């Protein structure tokens, strides 16, 4: 599917940032969290949508990035903007051996391996009390290096999200990105074209984990608290739902999916006890009846033709 026009997306993100100066404080905070989740979903879309590698362990890099950021903020007193970048890079470095092990497999095995690594992360962080704070987590993370104020933080998040989107979009439309598409469509054909499918998948894996680490670091700065639950498979499931609901492979879809899901959950959980049940059912319906998700539905409504 042809990716949406990046200029529109950037404009939307800029508008969101501007909203921070208009909305009441509580709404700004919500919007900030929603946009961080949008970045998280964007990172997973590279893996699930673009490379078609279903991962059940995306909470792994997210939480890892969060903890690395926590370490930088608490212990090394590194300003948040730099800490976010460093967290992303650290996650990318870890993603190389993990990814190398995972991309040798595919399908279910890949999903289970990615899950296993994330759960392993949970186990390590949970038990390693001395370093990670164990089940209590690490609280009181300072937002170093940024002027105070929710609007400023929102602008910061928007800036990171915009940069990440440009990176993802640029990758997907680049020569290497097109090869990733070829590998997902027909591995045999990609091989016959001179590409090593494992290496290609590893590149996407590392990029995806990099962005997830960035998102996690942002979250650490946002919530000013990290705990082992960030690694748990339910978090992986949640972001996967966002990607599928929004429309895997479109980059924009998962971001919209994240926003939609976040706000829907926030509103509806206040209204009804059975929100979780409705979400599960809705998810099943979407997978069966509308596999292209929200973006697919939007495109059909607008009569656009895929590429």
């Amino acid at each position, binding site marked *: 599917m042809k990716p949406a026009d990046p200029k529109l997306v950037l404009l939307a993100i800029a508008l969101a940032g501007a909203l921070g100066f208009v909305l009441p404080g509580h709404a700004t905070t919500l919007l900030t969290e929603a946009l961080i989740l949008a970045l998280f979903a964007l990172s997973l879309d590279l893996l699930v949508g673009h490379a078609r590698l279903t991962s059940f362990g995306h909470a792994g890099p997210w939480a890892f990035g969060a903890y690395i950021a926590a370490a930088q903020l608490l212990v090394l007193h590194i300003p948040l903007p730099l800490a976010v970048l460093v967290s992303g890079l650290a996650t990318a470095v870890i993603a190389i051996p993990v990814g190398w092990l995972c991309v040798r497999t595919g399908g279910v095995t890949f999903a289970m391996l990615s899950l296993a690594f994330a759960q392993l992360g949970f186990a390590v962080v949970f038990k390693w009390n001395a370093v990670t704070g164990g089940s209590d987590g690490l609280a009181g993370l300072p937002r170093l290096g940024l002027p105070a104020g929710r609007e400023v933080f929102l602008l910061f998040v928007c800036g990171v999200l915009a940069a990440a989107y440009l990176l993802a979009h*640029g990758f997907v439309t680049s*020569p290497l990105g*097109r*090869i990733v598409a070829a590998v997902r469509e027909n591995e045999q054909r990609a*091989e*016959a*074209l001179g*590409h*090593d499918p494992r290496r290609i998948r590893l590149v996407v894996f590392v990029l995806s984990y990099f962005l997830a680490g960035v998102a996690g670091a942002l979250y650490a700065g946002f919530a000013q608290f990290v705990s082992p639950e960030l690694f748990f498979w339910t978090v992986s499931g949640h972001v996967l739902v966002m990607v599928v609901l929004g429309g895997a492979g479109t980059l924009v879809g998962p971001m919209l999916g994240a926003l939609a899901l976040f706000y829907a959950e926030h509103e509806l959980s206040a209204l009804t006890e059975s929100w979780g049940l409705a979400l599960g059912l809705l998810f099943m319906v979407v997978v069966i009846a509308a596999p292209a998700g929200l973006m697919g539905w939007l495109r059909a409504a607008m009569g656009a033709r895929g*590429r």
Partner: protein
Amino acid sequence: MSLLSCRGLTRAWGAFRAVDGVDLDLAEREICAVIGPNGAGKSTLFAMIAGNLRKSAGTVHLGGEDVSALPAHAMAARGVARSFQITAICPELSALENVRLGVQALERLRWQPLGGAAAMRRGEEAAMGWLERLGLAGQARLPAGELAHGDQRLLEVAVALAQRPRLLILDEPTQGMSQGETRRTVALLRGIMAEAETAILLVEHDLEVVFELAPRLIVLHRGRKIADGPTAQVRADAAVQEAYLGGLD
């Protein structure tokens, strides 16, 4: 010096030998067809040459270099392109994009993770050229999976040609095509082969196609090479006639 030099190629599964000690030399720009009854080992032989299948024994030299142990993608990077017996195209990508991937295959820019728009446009133009030569230009923007079977087979050939390979391996390119499509394909291939800079190895079941396109013929029977020479000569060979007419196995 020959472009391709294979010695003693063997593929065994237990006691069963699908390919048994086959020698094969191919000069640059030479066109050679490989035929044989079902189960003779043709596709297995090609898979070994192209790196898709591991060899039980034997060596392959390409342009003087020992490539025996290389996997498929490494062979492709050295200028070996192939089409497959079972169509292997990228179904959701457009026909144009499929061929453009072929054009881009050996270019250095393929490792570029950002940008590259201008180079990709050039690639699209070149790809369009190939589509036009194979009569597929009208369907360039369609998802490749939506093309008719015969057109998909042609598309595969286009992708392989677009790579500008040193060695082109075509595995039953007209398989599944109607008589009319086959005739059209033969005419197209004849024109392209005449001017191409590539050596071609061709497997075909349709003997009419073989006789029209290939000046040299190799015959396999039960994994062994039983004939290798100019087409007219091999046609008349007694052993070949026996392999095709006698001994049902």
